[in-house]
């Protein structure tokens, strides 16, 4: 039986939004919720700057996901693993 892979992009975005101070946190949650729905996206389309922010936020979550980042040549797990190996090899903190 295969175990469902966690959605690191979505989880990462949720943690990022949760880490924001108020009132930004509430604003970001609203933007993410709107950007994820077609009707919300149409509403956001009326305000260019806000649309860009919402679009960027959700896209950030999308490309945080290892599978999506890999399609663009970015393998975060390999970078982190190489770093750990080098630190061990060279006795760094």
């Amino acid at each position: 039986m295969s175990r469902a892979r966690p959605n690191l992009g979505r989880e990462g975005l949720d943690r990022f939004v949760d880490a924001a101070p108020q009132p930004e946190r509430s604003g970001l949650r609203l933007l993410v919720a709107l950007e994820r729905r077609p009707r919300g996206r149409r509403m956001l389309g009326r305000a260019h700057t806000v649309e860009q922010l919402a679009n960027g936020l959700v896209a950030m979550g999308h490309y945080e996901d290892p599978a999506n980042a890999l399609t663009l040549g970015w393998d975060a797990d390999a970078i982190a693993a190489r770093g750990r190996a080098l630190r061990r090899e060279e006795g760094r903190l």
Partner: protein
Amino acid sequence: MSRRREPRIIEADVCVIGAGAGGAVAAAELAEGGASVVVLEQGPRHDADRFSARPLDMLARLYRDGGQTTTLGTPPILLPLGRGLGGTTLVNSGTCFRTPPAVLERWRGEFGLEALADEQALDPCFARVEQALSISEVTPELAGRNAAVARRGAEALGWSHGFLRRNARGCVGSGVCAFGCPTSAKQHVGITYIPRAEAAGAQVISGADVRHVLVERGAARGVEARLADGGRLEVRAPTVIVACGTIHTPLLLARSGLGRASGELGRNLALHPATGAFALMDEVVDMARGVPQSFYVDEFAREGIMFEGVAGPPSYVAMSLPLSGKRHAEAMANYRSLAMFGLMVSDRSRGSVRSLAGRPVIRYELIEEDVARFRRGLQRMEELFRAAGAGEVYLGLPGGVTPERARARDLKLMAFHPLGTARADARPEHGVVDGNLQLHGVTGVHVADGSVVPSSLGVNPQLTIMALATRLAFGLLGRDVPPTETTDAARERVA
């Protein structure tokens, strides 16, 4: 009936508040010089084994407010600040410049800081930090193709440029300096000066939220802190070094009733506001392979405009791209051919920080003179990318707004170098600390972070902050800073 726990009490010669660029350096030098030192750091001790190279994940862990501290004003400016042992040195790009001579001259002339800004006297301080942090110039190979694009443009235009000097050792170009170096190649103070301080006997306590600096009859008595387990801590020390950073130092001093006599506490905030631009190239760039900030163009430094490399993994670029909808998706599909570069302004605008319900409220309005610098800088940035062969250039402006017509509200800005909120000035009526970084009118309370820097530097400030902290530590020890071997290259500065 519950009883309030008695505070734990520690006695020391020196209590250092904050383990960032200033605090860690001062703590290590003092401890190695024989002082008993306690370092209180509000944030945690980070484990590099848990660094994931994923920006969103690391922003939430390594930054205050997940990197979303924002100024109030036009435009709002994102001000990411590191949190934990190492402070912002943990998450900065590692770029190291000595304080430009013209800036030191201004400190002497405008702020009466003859001794503090004495270039010759500071030289051994800089040299000592440069040696401790293995500061050296990035090689073209390690700089990667993103830097090569900017270099090609600068060479075609005949603009002054060079590879940056950084505090890195054994760097393999992981491309995530701002999100926790997975190889610990970046020599941030959390893995350099803090271990030195501990080896020399300093107690370093993380998760300690300092509430007040205690002063009696005009002299430091110690500090009171809350610990992560809910307990209270009192450090009794005749010398206190406040190094909470430019945003939080004035808040701590204000709630301790200190530093307010001049009316300058929390004012004079300079930020070095910055923006980024992207270019779609006809080649594979893979911007995050190599050192993100490895190259600079200082052709316009005299005008207060500096170009420095910036780059990141796809999720970071997705957030930074000044596009939306289909155009955003198309640009991201071409991520491997995107180049990115940053533009930083040595600002004349000044802001302020004050506390509201215990949180910093940062106000900063970009004045027209600085908006004009951004207009010119963005025009030049576009030229740079075009000269490098860019097909399309994406500046951080709304659609239809050209650089020459940009207004403050059109700019999409970030800032990484807050300075000046407890500025040094020899005159008590104009500054918070004196030339020895001691609070005017209070014996034994010193400040050692970006807040004492009295003006914009025009360059990355970590080396300035560390050199000033070195000077302070040796001053408190009553010793000269020992000479260190340096090369001419180590003294290179931006003109």
